């Protein structure tokens, strides 16, 4: 029973981070119809930037904000310079391009910082909380993780539903040409979409790194797990990304806890194939919006 509780709580924490990462992928998909396979590497880069700052005695939370800012800039530059030429072209091109970017970011970070594992601090304790004699399978950092992700999500909801900027971004994603006719600077909205997504990814990277070891490959599992979570929920649906992330986090936690950690990617593959073959647009596919 204790193990079940622990694995469930661990799964929720992991799921929260997958949710954030899947949200980032969803943001990019909605704005540019591209799956950004380099997202994980981008999050890794921003985390290393934060680590560099922390290593020169910059306070943790300042470094956290710096990572988010770096993500914002990185996402914007990448969209404007690298991705813009392939938007609207054959989807194969964007896939290959982002994969290439993944390798470049990965390799450059390894060259700059080396491949060894480095410790990453956490702002709060990463030891399991004890209530009396029993320890509950969640740490203060885990709780912080869930809170941060919830805040990010709330922020995005507010942005998209209640602000003019969010309206512009949604319109640009749904129908770029009509939006242009209405005066929306669609190009800028697309760049903003990537910038925002990269910022969210940066948050995910920081949450994974906290209290753990990082090396250039530490975000690599997210390449596939983030993708699976996003597809599970539906690439077009932000709510789906969150639910998909939670489901995936819990599933992988149970598999790792009860069966074997080496089977986790296989289980993820199984979930992915199940979704793609049974309900390809994801669990939360909105009623197919017809364009007229």
């Amino acid at each position, binding site marked *: 029973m204790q193990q079940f509780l622990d694995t469930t709580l661990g799964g929720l924490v992991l799921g929260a981070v997958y949710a954030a990462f899947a949200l980032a992928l969803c943001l990019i998909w909605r704005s540019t119809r591209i799956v950004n396979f380099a997202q994980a590497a981008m999050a890794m880069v921003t985390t290393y930037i934060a680590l560099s700052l922390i290593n020169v005695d910059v306070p943790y939370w300042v470094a956290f904000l710096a990572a988010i800012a770096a993500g914002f800039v990185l996402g914007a530059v990448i969209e404007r310079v690298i991705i813009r030429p392939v938007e609207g072209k054959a989807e194969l091109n964007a896939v290959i391009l982002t994969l290439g970017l993944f390798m470049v970011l990965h390799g450059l970070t390894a060259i700059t910082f080396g491949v060894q594992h480095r410790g990453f601090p956490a702002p709060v304790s990463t030891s399991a909380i004890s209530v009396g004699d029993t320890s509950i399978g969640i740490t203060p950092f885990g709780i912080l993780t869930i809170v941060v992700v919830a805040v990010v999500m709330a922020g995005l909801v507010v942005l998209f539903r209640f602000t003019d900027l969010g309206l512009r971004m949604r319109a640009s994603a749904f129908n770029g040409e*009509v939006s242009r*006719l209405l*005066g*929306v600077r669609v190009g800028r909205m697309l760049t903003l979409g990537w910038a925002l997504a990269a910022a969210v990814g940066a948050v995910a990277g920081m949450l994974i790194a906290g209290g753990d070891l990082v090396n250039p490959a530490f975000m690599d599992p997210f390449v596939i797990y983030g993708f699976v979570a996003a597809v599970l929920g539906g690439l077009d649906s932000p709510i789906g990304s969150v639910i998909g992330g939670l489901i995936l986090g819990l599933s992988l936690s149970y598999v790792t806890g009860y069966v074997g950690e080496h089977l986790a990617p296989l289980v993820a593959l199984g979930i992915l194939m199940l979704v793609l073959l049974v309900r390809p647009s994801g669990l939360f596919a909105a009623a197919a919006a017809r364009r007229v």
Partner: protein
Amino acid sequence: MFAVEDLSAAYGPVKALNGVSFTASRGQVTAVLGANGAGKTTLLRTVSGLVRSTGGSVTLNGKDITRTATEKLTSYGLSHVPEGRGVIAELTVVENLRLGGLHRATGSEPMPIERIFELFPRLGERREATAHMLSGGERQMLVIGRALMARPTVLLLDEPSLGLAPRVVAQIFDLLRGLVQTEELTVVLVEQNARSALSIADHGVVLNLGKVVASAPAAELAADEQLRHAYLGF
């Protein structure tokens, strides 16, 4: 005042517009007519900058807007309701309208959404509905309303009657005529349904294969049987 002078555009080697010229006056409806493929839609898309012109000019109230970026045109007072209506299906009625008002003509007063609902009560009843749930006629009203949110002086409409029942077409055209008079709009109305268009137009321009073959007051065009048979299908 809106003027197109010797405008040309091409899709690769195919010349879609070949030196088209006409003017549209304030407080008037200018119908642009012609068969399928005559270049009517291309004309509007070239004016809006979605298609690059290969020659000629477009002037709006004395300002040359030939090379202006598409996104800037609403701030100059030009609104284009595209072919197929261009409703953003995933957004609600209110959101579509709000979107239209975000980039209104420079120096103009914001248009209250309630005004649009006064003009189009049907939209008011369905204000929270997602746009894809609207009927064809309701969508047409929505996109006209959305265009009006930007306080345009010139309104370009591409085939508003497409796919709509005659009664609905008549309703919308009546509304349009009314708006032109009360708001002193300049309306350029591209239509394949020449009969209905001429019934509310002041002036008519007939295109064929990218060239202007006739430009005259609407009544004259409607009376010219030979012309009607040759280019307008009635």
